[in-house]
């Protein structure tokens, strides 16, 4: 992944560079939130309720007097965690299933691919809702729900790439030389399908952040007083008339984070494989 030519190709595109910078800011905020946030994100301050943005509180304060900037900063940590854990679940499960289906073919392939058909029969957020309904509303369950929803995309992509890699002469040669299936998969097949998986993962973090924030918005994810971006917007809904800042800044944070991940993902796709460009 740290191929210098790839990094050069990536940074040559201004939009990919912008994506990398935005993603960098998002990651840095998430990692450093407890050091750079000026106030406690959850402790109420009754004498500071719904104050407009000022020098002391650049993003204003919310209905409990909490600093919106600090909550947005801590919120990036929750969103990054949800996005990354959900992608990890989807990536690991989807890649494993895709490898098995593509490499073995036959019954395994048929079973796994029909399984992904069933998961894809649920429109977008509905699958996540079904999983959250089964496990109960909470942030952890949202991660699992969103992760399961994204498994088919990885499984299908990895299966497709595995099918084409399996035919290559060097895999044939390795097999003839006596490589075990595990070694074939890990060393020869997996290495060649890293590209599409990384692209999917980068684009996936953004999508997952959106779905997870949506579930928290309707009350199925993060519960108060957690400084989660979707939940913050949900709380802001009823103060919209008097306190626009409580709704504007958390939403802006989600949008900027997702724009960054999308630009970076598009840039990575173009840099890794120009033929995939849409």
């Amino acid at each position, binding site marked *: 992944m740290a191929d210098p030519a790839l990094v050069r190709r990536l940074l040559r595109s201004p939009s990919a560079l912008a994506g990398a910078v935005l993603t960098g800011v998002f990651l840095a905020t998430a990692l450093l939130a407890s050091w750079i946030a000026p106030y406690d994100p959850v402790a109420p301050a009754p004498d500071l309720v719904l104050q407009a943005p000022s020098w002391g509180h650049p993003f204003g304060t919310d209905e409990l007097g909490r600093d919106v900037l600090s909550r947005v900063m801590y919120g990036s940590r929750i969103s990054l965690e949800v996005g990354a854990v959900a992608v990890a679940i989807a990536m690991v499960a989807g890649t494993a299933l895709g490898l098995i289906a593509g490499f073995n073919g036959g019954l395994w392939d048929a079973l796994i691919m029909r399984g992904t*058909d069933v998961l894809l029969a649920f429109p977008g957020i509905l699958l996540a809702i079904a999983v959250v309904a089964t496990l109960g509303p909470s942030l952890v369950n949202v991660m699992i729900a969103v992760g399961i929803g994204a498994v088919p995309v990885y499984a299908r992509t990895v299966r497709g790439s595995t099918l084409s890699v399996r035919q290559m002469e060097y895999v044939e040669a390795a097999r003839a030389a006596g490589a075990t299936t595990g070694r074939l998969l890990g060393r020869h097949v997996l290495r060649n399908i890293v590209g599409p998986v990384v692209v999917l993962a980068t684009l996936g973090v953004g999508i997952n952040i959106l779905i997870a924030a949506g579930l928290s918005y309707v009350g199925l994810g993060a519960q108060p007083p957690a400084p989660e971006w979707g939940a913050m917007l949900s709380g*802001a809904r009823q103060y919209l008339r008097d306190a626009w800042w409580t709704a504007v800044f958390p939403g802006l944070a989600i949008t900027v984070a997702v*724009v960054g991940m999308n630009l970076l993902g598009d840039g990575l796709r173009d840099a890794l494989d120009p033929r995939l460009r849409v």
Partner: protein
Amino acid sequence: MIGYTLRRAGMTLLVLLAVSVLVFLMSHLTPGDPATIMLGENASRADVLRLRHELGLDRPLPVQYGRYLLNVLRGDLGRSIRSGRPVAGEIWERFPPTLQLTLAATAVAVAAGVLLGALAATSRNRAVEALLMSASLMGISMPSFWLGLLLILLFGLVLHWLPIAGGSGWRALVLPAVTLAAQAAAVLARLTRASLLEVLPSDYVRTARAKGVASRRVLFHHALRNALIPVVTVIGLQFGGLLGGAVIVESVFARSGLGRFAVGAIQARDFPLIQGIVVFAAAVYALVNLSVDVLYLALDPRISYD
């Protein structure tokens, strides 16, 4: 074509059958016993056992599933725990406003997406193209609930042009439909642009231009007609996405509908209701995609699946 349609319909049925298994298992995978949830934690052991027997929960799983499937096929989705009313009736009552919202959003998304995509593909002005592409990036990256809140703020609270929540009639539908449509419009605009850029250099487009056809007519009559074929498939997929997105948009605008009803059902852990809604939504989605695939075949005589 009939052969393909039948095969495709058969696949859809199989997928829906698998969905019914998953949904049936949902209530068995959930922590806690359904009978205890229905009666409350303080119910006596005897009462719980009696209800378990009445619900058939003491029978083997395959038997329970068989009974469940037969009931679903007869249109009986069980009774809501909260209201005690039949789930099918409850769903049927809440579906029209959600369908109305989804259809309106689909119309907005298709109109805006195709027009903006065509504009981006044909614009000689790089600034216009860059602006349209940035707008589509925003559309894809912006959460619908935030866009909805911003629209409420601007058109409801500042300009007072449109109602901010609830209500009926077309005026109450404008903001929710635009909110729900934004993401799909952005996807369709990108796709239309890419598809047009592929079609525009073809010989038949050049021929039309060479024989003096007006450029607007070349675009709309000749090029778009072919460029829209892949777009139609995506419209089908987007419709399902919009149906799911209604869950959030209905909450933002406090509109009554199936989406908001589903959220309430989850919070109340009303399992029969949740299961019914999930089966219903998956069936609607599968049927829409089936129709789109068949329609696709009729639209493009070059495609043959047989």
